[in-house]
């Protein structure tokens, strides 16, 4: 369809204004990450300077940024892997079988994504506390503890996205394999999963982004041993001052993998996202 010129111009104007609103603070901040401390907050702002990596050096080594990066990677990858292991078979079941209250369960799953994290965070904190005191199972400030907690918002997304992919395939695909000598699991593994593989990749990446950016649950449930990158960013805002250059260099470290992943896989991401919505 051909869009009239005036409408296209209007669309571009709106998009450019929005882009400026969103991008300028990010860009200005990112520039600050490369400024020496002396001109972090100079007024008027300094735009021409010799870029330096001293902020990165400081947050990465002096303030143990590498440790937080490691923690973030372990928690994000671990929780995505767990969400896929649990969620992909669940999604297949939702797509293929009608069972008692399967519809209600799907709706309940999506409702899990609508609740604010504090509703989940505090009960988990209380549960972990009871487990620790009552049974001696320590989950506070551990990787397994955080990975389990993250399932509350990752699993519903995995199930919703993957169910869309499975539902698109004809059931005859597995049935054919089942008649030809395979079990249902064998058919799922050898026939169906290879077909939905791009969907699994898109789902994994989207979930990784959510887990990577997560702040609130980590704030409640993580501690010294498991602090994540977003939490470490918070430590540069203290009562007396904001360490702008350090803060923005942490931000850049947080954003970089997300931006790279999104650019590489933007097509699959859009497809994966619309699947969930249209379903």
């Amino acid at each position, binding site marked *: 369809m051909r869009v009239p010129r005036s409408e296209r111009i209007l669309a571009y104007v709106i998009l450019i204004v929005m882009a400026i609103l969103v991008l300028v603070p990010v860009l200005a901040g990112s520039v600050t990450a490369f400024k020496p401390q002396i001109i972090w907050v100079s007024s008027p702002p300094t735009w021409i300077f010799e870029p330096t990596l001293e902020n990165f050096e400081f947050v990465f080594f002096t303030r143990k940024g590498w440790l937080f990066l490691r923690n973030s990677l372990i928690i994000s990858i671990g929780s995505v892997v767990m969400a896929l292991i649990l969620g992909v078979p669940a999604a297949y079941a939702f797509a293929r079988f*009608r069972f008692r209250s399967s519809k209600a369960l799907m709706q309940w799953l999506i409702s899990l994504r609508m609740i604010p994290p504090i509703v989940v965070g505090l009960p988990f904190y209380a549960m972990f506390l009871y487990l620790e005191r009552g049974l001696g199972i320590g989950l506070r400030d551990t990787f397994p503890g955080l990975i389990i907690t993250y399932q509350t918002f990752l699993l519903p997304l995995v199930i919703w996205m993957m169910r869309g992919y499975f539902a698109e395939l004809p059931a005859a695909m597995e*049935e054919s394999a*089942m*008649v*030809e000598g395979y079990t249902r699991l064998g058919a799922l593994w050898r026939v169906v999963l*290879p077909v939905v593989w791009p969907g699994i990749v898109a789902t994994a990446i989207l979930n990784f982004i959510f887990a990577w950016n997560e702040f609130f649950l980590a704030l409640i449930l993580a501690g010294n041993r498991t602090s994540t990158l977003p939490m470490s960013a918070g430590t540069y805002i203290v009562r007396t001052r904001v360490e702008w250059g350090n803060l923005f260099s942490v931000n850049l470290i947080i954003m970089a993998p997300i931006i790279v992943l999104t650019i590489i896989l933007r097509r699959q991401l859009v497809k994966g996202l619309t699947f969930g919505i249209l379903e």
Partner: protein
Amino acid sequence: MRVVLKDLVKRFANSDRAAVNKINLVIEAGELAVLLGPSGCGKTTTLRMIAGLEQPDSGRITIAERDITNLAPKDRGLAMVFQNFSMYPTMNVYDNIAFPLHAVKMKRGEIDGAVREMARLVNIDHLLGRSVRQVSGGEAQRVALARAMVRRPQVFLMDEPLSNLDAKLRVQLRTEIKRLHQDTGATFIFVTHDQEEAMTLGDKIIVMKDGDIQQVGSPHEVFFAPRNAFVANFVGTPSMNMLHGTVSRGESGGFRLQLPGFDLSLPERFNRGLENMTGSRVIWGIRPEAIKLMPEPGENCVSGEVELVEALGSRDLIFVRVVEQLFGVIVDALESVAVGDTCHLHFAAGQMRLFDADSERSLLPNSL
């Protein structure tokens, strides 16, 4: 191998009517049996129960005397071709055909031989290296056939495998399936809603409706000796002309039939079936092929005006208005009948059918 269904019942949770209602059926070894019926008649459900893809609520299924009712699909030793799915999209044609052989852990060399042989049999050996995206619909169903045959099963199940193909290809593949049946000597169970396909393929036709078997018989039997009005109406294109009428006694002792606007004398073979039916409502049926155009009016002959002419090629299907009834009649195209012509229709006495108006059962003793 002989396939026997005993008192088979299947209900689905979302419906109060049984999808398959306690059916009994014997399909002899080496037979090509066709399950025929409109959509929702239970034919596909029946086939899926034989395949093991649906579990019956009650009843038994045996293949060659072996009870397979509770076996997993993979352990039944069957092959199945589906309507809307024919190939695994991540594998090429070769790997598609080889796929069932990997399940039985066959050696690589043997697999190669078997795949090539099957591909030759259905004329796709030039496609083996192709990606499945590069093959047409007809070729895809050939791949499905090859994949079904590669394990040399003794029972083939086919769920409307030709329905998604265009008309010409459908006829071509139909012939090929018939040939494969003859070459393999296996038992074929074929599901279709297309009565022409059923007639041309089947050794035995099983007509189903609402989960019940209406009639089992050869193509000739279901066409010429339908057990009830449903079979009579469903089998044959163009379909049978059917009218409600009332039976009465004729002067000479025979029976007559009062139809809207005219009456007919009924042939003697109905006498036994009509013994206590004087005054009863019946359904009278005659196929469009059994109506002849006469030059003059006469006995068992009615006149009407041609309302519509459909060209079928060498023959025309004309629709003749007789009072309130429109009769479909097959005539030779060379007779060049035109809309508005007056025709005298003669009904071949030997091909009239009568059915009880309530039970819809045939009023003829079971014979051709």
